[in-house]
Every structure is written in structure tokens, then in C-alpha cells.
């Protein structure tokens, strides 16, 4: 008589855990004590339970065809392009994405999480807006989770973020390639790790070329007002400058305004680089602003791919994956772009 193949339930009973925990343990997803995970894996081995078996596959395959996206991004500035990337990767015919705005409030986050789970989402993507690490969800959900843009502080979680340091270096190397040598950095709000990392990246790139910034990097706000004020202040102090690396496109617009008001020609006298590649602001300015694109859609796509891997039963890769930025060259650095 052929023995009945072991089920996930058998494994769970032997390991003395719930079926959900057993499933997660065998998938390498969710957070649990290593001892627990090991116990489940040993139970599965003892019962010759196959991870690739149809039962587990069925248990893992997305049922509702929906992914929940939780975001605290106030203007949707980052969450919406990421949403687009997620949808494109998942495919329009199969899966749809429900977005919930938590407004940075933990109680709202819990509430939306419950609502999404109650509606049967198969996976969750948690999108920040600051790029700063954030705490993991207070209650580990029973579906795969990927943190996008703001990585989870828990290194066992799966996160996809932009590489702010490399992005800052990209901007610096561009102006160096154009022959600029007196480079200043006008950063954004210093409470954001992204602002500091971008500046660090730029400074590092300058150092690699044997240079220092023409003045210490300054930080303020993510606004045109700040860009304007910072440039006026630098010029008032007599700082010689031939390139301004700005923490955002808004800052860059303000910088451009101030430089033009002070009779500088752009890019002939001073090259200006923004950050974020916010089309409405950067592409339609005059002159149009060279900027660094964070590849938010790419971050979304990667997050969706990681969810798909989790559903397919592949062990999830814990830790933070970085998605590189790219430069979009326009008229503030190269004429005729």
C-alpha cells in the first residue's frame, strides 16, 4: 500500500506550529525565530514533504489577484509612479493594486492593513516617501511584504530602495565631465537621510577627482525659495562657482532663478543639476532642468517581482536591494539638450 503523501498540515502538527507558520517557514518568508524555522524544515524533511508539491503551490498562488499598497506619501509624488511600476510588472490582466494612504499615522496604517487583508490581498508593498528606514509593520501580515523606497529597519524584511549616495555621485560626475571645477551643493531638508546621502555621494565623487566643493554643502528645505536664497547667499559671499548640485528639482528652479537674476548664463557660466526628475517642474522650466531620475517605476517593478518570487515559493531575499538612478540631461547643463 502506498503511503499518502504528507501534507502541510502534517508538517505543522509535527513542528507544533500553525499551518500559516509552516508555510512561511518553508517559503523563507515572514519573520520568526530561527529555531522555529529550523524545526519546521526538519519536520518537512522527516516527513519527506515536498516544498514544490501542488498543495503548497496552491496555497501560495495569488488567490484574489490583488496587491495592497500602503503609503505615507502625502502628494503621491513617489507612491504613484511606484504603483505604476508594480502594476506594469504584475500585468494588467491578472492583478490589480489597491492603494491606501496612511498619512504617516500608525493607527491608520494598522487600520488600512486590516482592511486590505480583509479584502483578501495576496501581497503588500509598503511605500515610504522619505527614503529613511522605517519600522516594520507592527503586525507581521500573513502575506508576503516588500518595503519600497523606505527600507524596513528589520534586516530580515525584503526592501527595495533608491541609491541616494550613488545618485548624488552621478550628478557630480556629470558636471565634472563638463569640465566644471567649482561645484557647490545646495541640499534639501537635512531631516531626510536622502538629502544627506545625496550630498555625501556628490562630495565623494568630487574627492575621487581630487577636488573639494567650492563651499561647504548647505541644507534647507525642498523648495524653490530655499534654492533662491541659498544661491544668493553664496554669491553674496563671493563664492566662485560654475556648477550647482541641487537636492531636488524645486531647489534647482530656485537656483536657476537666482543665477539668472544675478546675470549668470546657464549653462555657460553655471551648470545646474536638480534631483527627482519631476517632469512637470524640470522638463517645462526655461531652461529645462537636468535632473536625476530615481527610477521609481523600476523600484515598483522590482518590488512586484519580489512578491511574485514569494508567491512562487522561492525563499525571499532578506535585506535591501538598491535600484540605480539615471541622469536626464537637459538645458541647464548642456545647451541644445
Amino acid at each position, binding site marked *: 500500500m502506498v503511503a499518502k503523501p504528507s501534507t502541510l498540515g502534517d508538517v505543522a502538527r509535527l513542528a507544533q506550529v500553525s499551518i500559516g507558520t509552516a508555510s512561511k517557514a518553508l517559503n523563507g518568508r515572514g519573520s520568526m525565530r530561527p529555531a522555529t524555522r529550523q524545526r519546521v524544515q526538519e519536520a518537512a524533511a522527516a516527513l519527506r514533504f515536498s516544498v514544490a508539491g501542488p498543495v503548497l503551490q496552491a496555497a501560495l498562488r495569488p488567490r484574489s489577484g490583488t496587491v495592497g499598497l500602503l503609503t505615507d506619501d502625502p502628494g503621491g509624488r513617489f507612491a504613484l509612479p511606484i504603483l*505604476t511600476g508594480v502594476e506594469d510588472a504584475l500585468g494588467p490582466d491578472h492583478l490589480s*493594486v*489597491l*492603494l491606501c*494612504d496612511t498619512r504617516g499615522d500608525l493607527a491608520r496604517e494598522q487600520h488600512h492593513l486590516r*482592511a486590505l487583508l480583509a*479584502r483578501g490581498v495576496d501581497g503588500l508593498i509598503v511605500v515610504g516617501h522619505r527614503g529613511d528606514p522605517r519600522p516594520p509593520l507592527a503586525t507581521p501580515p500573513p502575506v508576503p511584504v516588500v518595503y519600497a523606497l523606505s527600507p524596513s529597519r528589520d534586516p530580515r524584511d525584503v526592501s527595495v530602495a533608491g541609491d541616494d549616495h550613488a545618485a548624488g555621485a552621478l550628478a557630480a560626475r556629470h558636471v565634472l565631465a563638463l569640465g566644471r571645477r567649482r561645484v557647490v551643493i545646495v541640499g534639501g531638508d537635512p531631516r531626510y537621510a536622502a538629502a544627506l546621502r545625496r550630498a555625501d555621494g556628490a562630495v565623494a565623487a568630487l574627492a575621487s577627482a581630487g577636488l573639494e566643493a567650492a563651499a561647504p554643502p548647505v541644507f534647507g528645505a525642498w523648495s*524653490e525659495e530655499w534654492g533662491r536664497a541659498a544661491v*544668493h547667499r553664496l554669491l553674496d559671499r563671493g563664492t566662485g562657482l560654475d556648477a550647482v548640485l541641487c537636492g531636488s528639482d524645486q531647489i534647482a528652479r530656485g537656483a536657476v532663478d537666482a543665477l539668472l537674476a544675478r546675470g549668470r548664463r546657464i549653462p555657460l557660466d553655471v551648470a545646474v543639476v536638480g534631483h527627482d526628475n519631476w517632469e512637470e*517642474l524640470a522638463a517645462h522650466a526655461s531652461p529645462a532642468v537636468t535632473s536625476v531620475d530615481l527610477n521609481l517605476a523600476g523600484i515598483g517593478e522590482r518590488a512586484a517581482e519580489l512578491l511574485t518570487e514569494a508567491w512562487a515559493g522561492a525563499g525571499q531575499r532578506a535585506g535591501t536591494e538598491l535600484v540605480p538612478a539615471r541622469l536626464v540631461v537637459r538645458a541647464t547643463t548642456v545647451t541644445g539638450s
Partner: protein
Amino acid sequence: MAPVDAVVTLSDVAREAGVSIATASKALNGKDDVAAETRRRVLAIAEAMSFRANPMAKGLNTRLSGTVGLLTGDLEGRFMIPILTGAENAFVNGRVDVFLCDARGDAIREQHQLRALLNRRVDGIIVVGASTNPRSSLAHDIPVPVVYVNAPSENPDDLSLAPDEFMGGRIAVEHLLACGRTRIAHISGDPAYTAAHGRAAGARAALRDAGLDFVADPVFSEWSEQWGRSATAMLLGRHPDVDGIFAGSDQIARGVLDTARELGREVPDDLSVIGYDNWEVIATGSRPGLTTVDAQLQDLGRLAAQRIFEGIDGADIGAGVRQQPVRLVVRGSTVPGRAPAGRG
């Protein structure tokens, strides 16, 4: 785990009977335009399910939570985000979960998203457009209340809430007149947009009421800074006596400001400039800050969510396009003598 609410709703009845919520409501409220057989079926099902209508529809504050699906064609978020925020804020005592789905202006995709939302058992659907151009109705017989916001539905049986563009144009010009301006011009965007015509019509009406007209015919091209720059250069070249410019959008207005500065015209002392949209990023970043018109999209979102829950409680939420008031937001670009001193 369905929302904790053991009471049978109108939506449940509609779903069982295979009719739209509007039809179910009419059947139960004894309205005439319902087929006899449909009315019988709806009444029988309502009886069988022990449905009790809430005739006062005052359950709004006692309903602690619900879920609304927001189907948007605006993925930039400029319109959608404030509407979503307003919908979420609709209830003082509890929370409304808003599930956002993006349709990207694609009809097939939109239908797919609609199915996804209905399968998620949302209590109602808000359909948001990226402009105020009318759009086709989503579908017949949707078993939950639907409200169209910003872009109205072409179907007069649907309820649509849209910002009053005519009023917007009017109050923009009335403000310029109040600033003492009399030689007023209008630069606007894509003429394929209802918004362009609505705003221009309201502007002209305000001028006519003051016994005036535009200094030159309004010009229409695109909703861009670049167009604002070019159009202003042409305008001020031909009509240097223009003292007030109503730009059809904040982006156009930024272009107007740029050219005005290049031509040595002082804003606001010499030339008043007003935009439209109150798109914070664009309107607050300029120097001076832009006076503009706010479409009050948050209020539209809140109103839409309220209508949805009234609809669920059995009230007749109405139909047709309801124009909602817009408001003026005054910053530094219009009132002469108010600008702070300083470099531009």
C-alpha cells in the same frame, strides 16, 4: 471577514436582484420609472432579506467605517490626491478606507479595475477624471452607488460633481477688476478641454458686467509654462497697455511671470497675474507667489463619499452634473503695492 455590519443594505438587495442601486432605490421608494416585474422582484427580495430602509439617511455619523473604491484616470495625482483625501475625511467619527485603482484612461483597464473593486465588496465607487471633460458612463447596473468627480459622466442618470469652471473664470476676473485693472487679457490652454472654455466664458461674463471686454481675443494652446512665456511675449508686444493677465492654469501663469520679468514689467505693481488650479508646488514656488483659483477638490471628494453612504442607506442621491463652488486664493501676484521688497 466582511465589514462588521449585520444589517442588510440596499446594496445587498440590489446585488441579489441583479439591478443597479439606483433602480433598487426607485423600486423601494415607489418611483414610477421602474418596470413592474423589476419592482415586484426587488420588493420580494427586500422582504425576504428583511431589508429596512433608513428614510432619514442620518446614519452618516454612526457608520463607523466603510470602504470606497476610487477609480482614477489621473495618475499624476494632482486632482486625485485631494479628492481621495476628502473622501477619506468624510466621516468625523470613523474612517473611510479608500481603495485606489488606476485606470490610466483606458476603458478596458477601467472595466477590469471596476470588477476588481466590486469583487473587493467596496460600498461605493468614486470615478475621478484628470480633467473636467465629460466621459462615458462606467456601466449599467453597478450594484453600489457611483459618483463621478471632476470629469462628469455623459449619462444624465449618473451623479457627477464638478468644479464650477464658469464661476472660476468669473471670480478670477472680478479679482483683477477689484485690483483696479481694466485692460485685461486671457491666455489659456488646450481648447479641446471644457475647462478652457468654461473659464474663458466666466471671465468674459465678468468683464461684460463691468462694461468691458478683453483687450485682445483670448488665446488657447496648451497647459504649459512655455506657452505662457510665448503668448505673453506676443501679447505685451502688441498690447503693452495690458495691466491684468488671467492665465488658464498656474503653469501658464508661471510662464507669464517669467516673460513679464524679462520685459521689465513689475508684478504685481505694474501688471497683475492670476492663474488657476492652486497647484501648490507651482503656485507657491514663484516670486511673487501666484494668486489663483482653487477647485476645492477635497470638498468634492468628501461630498462624493457622503453621497455614496447616503445612497447605501437608501436615499435618492440624485443625478446629473452638480457644479460645486470654487474659491479665490490670493498671494502676491495680483494686488498692487502688496509685494514684499527683495530680489526676484
